[in-house]
């Protein structure tokens, strides 16, 4: 990132190559359509370009990028809530298990869900999540534990039913 700040185009291409897929995954799991996920991934990198001069290496590049992505996601959600709330129901075709996991995750408390997803899918550390969501580290740990236990409770009865139906 510092190399890019000094004007290296190669550094930006490296940044793009390394973080495009994780950012796309971040948006894809949180937005109903692939197109918007791809658009916002691109917009994240555009925001990085715009803010290059102001960048200060106070945290990891990863946290910085997810910070931008998180803000863009918040704006997108606000716009969706105003314009087309029904768009939230559109889903990509997925396997039964994936759909099942996703539906279980959607039932979690929003903050706990966000913490869990940041940990499991974005592989952020507790302190990175705390920085990103601006909450204390202990809160991250408590809510993460609670969300994992809640998800286990949501997945287990369903797994029993599925096992019975398969049998």
């Amino acid at each position, binding site marked *: 990132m510092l190399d890019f700040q000094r004007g290296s185009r190669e550094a930006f291409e490296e940044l793009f*190559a390394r973080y*495009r*897929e994780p950012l796309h995954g971040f948006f894809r*799991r949180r937005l109903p359509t692939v197109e918007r996920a*791809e658009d916002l991934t691109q917009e994240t990198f555009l925001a990085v370009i715009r803010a290059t001069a102001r960048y200060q290496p106070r945290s*990891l590049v990863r946290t910085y990028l997810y910070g931008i992505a998180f803000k863009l996601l918040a704006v997108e959600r606000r716009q969706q809530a105003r314009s087309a709330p029904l768009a939230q129901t559109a889903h990509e075709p*997925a396997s039964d298990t994936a759909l099942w996991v996703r539906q279980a995750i959607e039932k979690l408390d929003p903050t706990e869900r966000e913490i869990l997803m940041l940990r499991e899918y974005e592989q952020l550390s*507790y302190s990175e999540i705390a920085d990103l969501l601006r909450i204390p580290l202990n809160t991250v740990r408590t809510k993460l*534990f609670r969300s994992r236990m809640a*998800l286990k409770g949501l997945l287990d009865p369903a797994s029993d039913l599925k096992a019975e139906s398969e049998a």
Partner: protein
Amino acid sequence: MLTHTHPIDPEELMAYLDGELSVDRAATAAAHLENCRECQELAADLQGVSRRMTAWQVDPCAPSAPPSVPERRASRWRWQWGLAGAGVAALSAFVMIGLLRPPVKYQRTTRDFVKTRPVAAEMPPPRMIAHTAQLTLSTTEFDKTRPALDDILKRHQGYFGELNINAPAGIGRTLEATLRVPADHRDAAIAEVKRLGHVESESQTGEEVTAEYVDREARLNNARNTEKRLTELLRDRTGKLSDVLAVQLEIGHVRESIERMQAEQKSLLKRVDFATLNVKILEDYKDRLQVMPDTILGRFRNSAIAGYRGMLEGIVTVISFLLSTGPSLLFWSVIIFIIIKFTWKIFRRFKS
């Protein structure tokens, strides 16, 4: 729930599994987890949730070029006024380049090769190598190693694949960890890990997995095509219920194999993108000298106690022997006595 009877609480156990616990608490957690069934079950539940969450995977994003970066970032007004124009110009340029130029030779990373699959399939893929390194170190400053590894991983944007700390009594502690660091940070990370102690052994391997990747990618494409054909067949044709069920069953099998291959590809790419460092750190342990009794009287006392204990041991051993073998000895003595006496009587009668 567990705090009253366990040295670690459930959240700490979770943090330990996530590699987020401080070194001293991690050692406590590791030692406790080995013996506590309740905590093992909780750990299995937590790991089970993480494992099941991996079922929700998203497709890789469509290939695209990075946003255009202006060559010179001279003045603020150029950013503000030129941004929209630059976007349009970049888009036009890419369209023109795409129309006029033949596919360019592949020069980027492995991951880009994956993203640009339709084009890349026609060209030789870049070499894909999964790097693994083994390091064994010894150190006198064992307590500093875990935070140091955390720092190294944070700096290089890696993560713990596995972490085990053992602190047995009487011998030095050991830390065994599997670090996953981005492949291009591998050399730097290894150099930093080596500075944590004296290097006892080091080995590095690189496994080329290009053929494996290409082969599986081909099979994956075939499976996707098969699934598409079967889905079309199911949609367009009508037939007996048994035929429909047979097609649905076949689609299920194909989908299962696609998901399995996708997971294997993902795992392979992760092995290529992230080098594996297996690190073992041993503590240079200095045993304490056993202090001997330093007075003559103390020695006499110890000898007297040992003598008394030996005498008691002897008495107990003899009594135990008599009790255990006495009845048998008595029985056989009586039998032998009767036989001898009877024989003697016969002998005397015969002689007279």
